[in-house]
């Protein structure tokens, strides 16, 4: 088993997040912007720390149960 990955800080600022949201057409209150920024920082840091598990060695989830089972009908 790989060692438990330690997330590194990801430094999105609220201003950067506001630009990214605006690029998709979203305008949100400042209080929401802070929450979204906080969540995005944590989520991206956590996901990128998974390099320790070598996810790049496998294909993205493609073993859909329906596809696998129905192909064997």
């Amino acid at each position, binding site marked *: *088993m790989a060692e*438990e990955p330690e*997330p590194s800080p990801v430094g999105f600022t609220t201003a950067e*997040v506001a630009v*990214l*949201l605006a690029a*998709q*057409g*979203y*305008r*949100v209150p400042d209080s*929401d912007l*802070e*929450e*979204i920024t*906080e*969540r*995005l920082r*944590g*989520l*991206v840091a*956590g*996901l*990128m720390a*998974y*390099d320790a*598990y070598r*996810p*790049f060695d*496998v*294909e*993205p*989830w*493609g*073993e*859909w*149960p*329906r596809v*696998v*089972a*129905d192909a064997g*009908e």
Partner: protein
Amino acid sequence: MPASEWVYRGAVEQSEGLRAGELDAVELTEAYLARIGALDGQLRSFITVLGDEALEAARRSAERLRAGAPLSRLDGIPFAVKDQMLVEGVRVTGGSRVLANFVGERDATVVRRLREAGAVLLGTLNTHEFHSGMTRDPLFGKTRNPWNLERSPGASSSGSAAAVAAGLCSFSLGGDTGGSIRAPASYCGVVGVKATWSRVSRDGVIPLAYSMDCVGPLARRVEDTALVLEHLAGADPLDPTASRLPVPSYVEDLTSDLAGLRVGVITEMLDPAVIQPAAIAATEAAVTVLRELGAAVVPVSVPLLHQTRFISVALIMAEAASHHRKWLLERYEDYDVNTRTNFLTGALLPAGALGQAQRMRSLVARQVMGCLEEVDVLVGPTADAAFPLQPRDSLPLREEVRASLRMPAMASGPQTRVFSLSGHPSLSVPCGFDPDGLPLGLQLATRHFDETTLLRVAHAYEARTPWHTRRPAFIGAT
């Protein structure tokens, strides 16, 4: 025996009573409607109660039963559905102000199949907004746990579990994307089944995350969920993702003999760092019962289990953001603050991070499938006992977010999310109580499309234990 004494019986037992003429379909529906009227003001499990329509459907069932021509074993059995599934002519909100005035133009396939089988629809059930977990300000109030009104019934099929536990319907339908059937079932002391992803049609069901969404039954007995699942499962021209595999007779395959069965206990699920001691003790006791029933028990490992909450949340946020884009642009303020900030976080997730989550999902699925090459059934606790309603909900939002994102290994949910990510069928069956008298659930999982074994093991365990015979001390529920 008066109908009021049948309300806590299982659907299969009620069906036998109806066909034998010992129970009247109209009186059974009236008994449930009376209980809803008397008890649901406190419980808040229902959103819409279809009193007149239910009685009319029950009258038609009664006529068929008297004529000896029931449509199925579900004919005359009262049920309710999570406010996530279309019901013709009925308000379907997804628990959101965004859909506060939306009325279904037709039945979802799962609702239609049950009605065509003669089951009597009592109404729609409360849920967290768009089934996405904690809603700060629920449109229809917070559903309470019948075992302790100050505790949560779990999310997001809150009403579906609470109503069954309180004896307000014979069975219910819920939706499960990361554990939303199984965790509430565990919290409320009932059985909840998430079949293999794609086993049950999602046509007419408000989505959260298409690659994990499942619809399934909650009931007081395993055999009831087997009977309902038989009617729900199968190909559907309205849902191209629904599997075309034939549906076996789950009820006929229920036995109490587990000789030769190989059971794997997932060691990471018994880690005291992520699950309460009472849940661990109840699981270990349940494993002893399975061994007594003839199963061979071995430990197995899913090393990535503790990472599944994080992976699952990332995928759900991203898929939900895509589905909700139109409403997020047009109705942003109508969303609960927790829902909208979650969904917009998903909208901003970089493609590289999303790809990372998708590949981690592959690794998780491989680990689960690897275990199921060695054993027939995986077991572990479903969840902790129900948490208090108020203290958790009153946490400052930022504190809650930080806690859940920065300490994913400590957050609740990995026990159920692992099988949502891998697509495997799994269920929760009552397996005891904690020192405060709150129910605990045992989670089982089997190979893709092996719901037969899943239900058979749960049925054998249930038959050997007393947990399903207990009722909440909720006023009037005894």
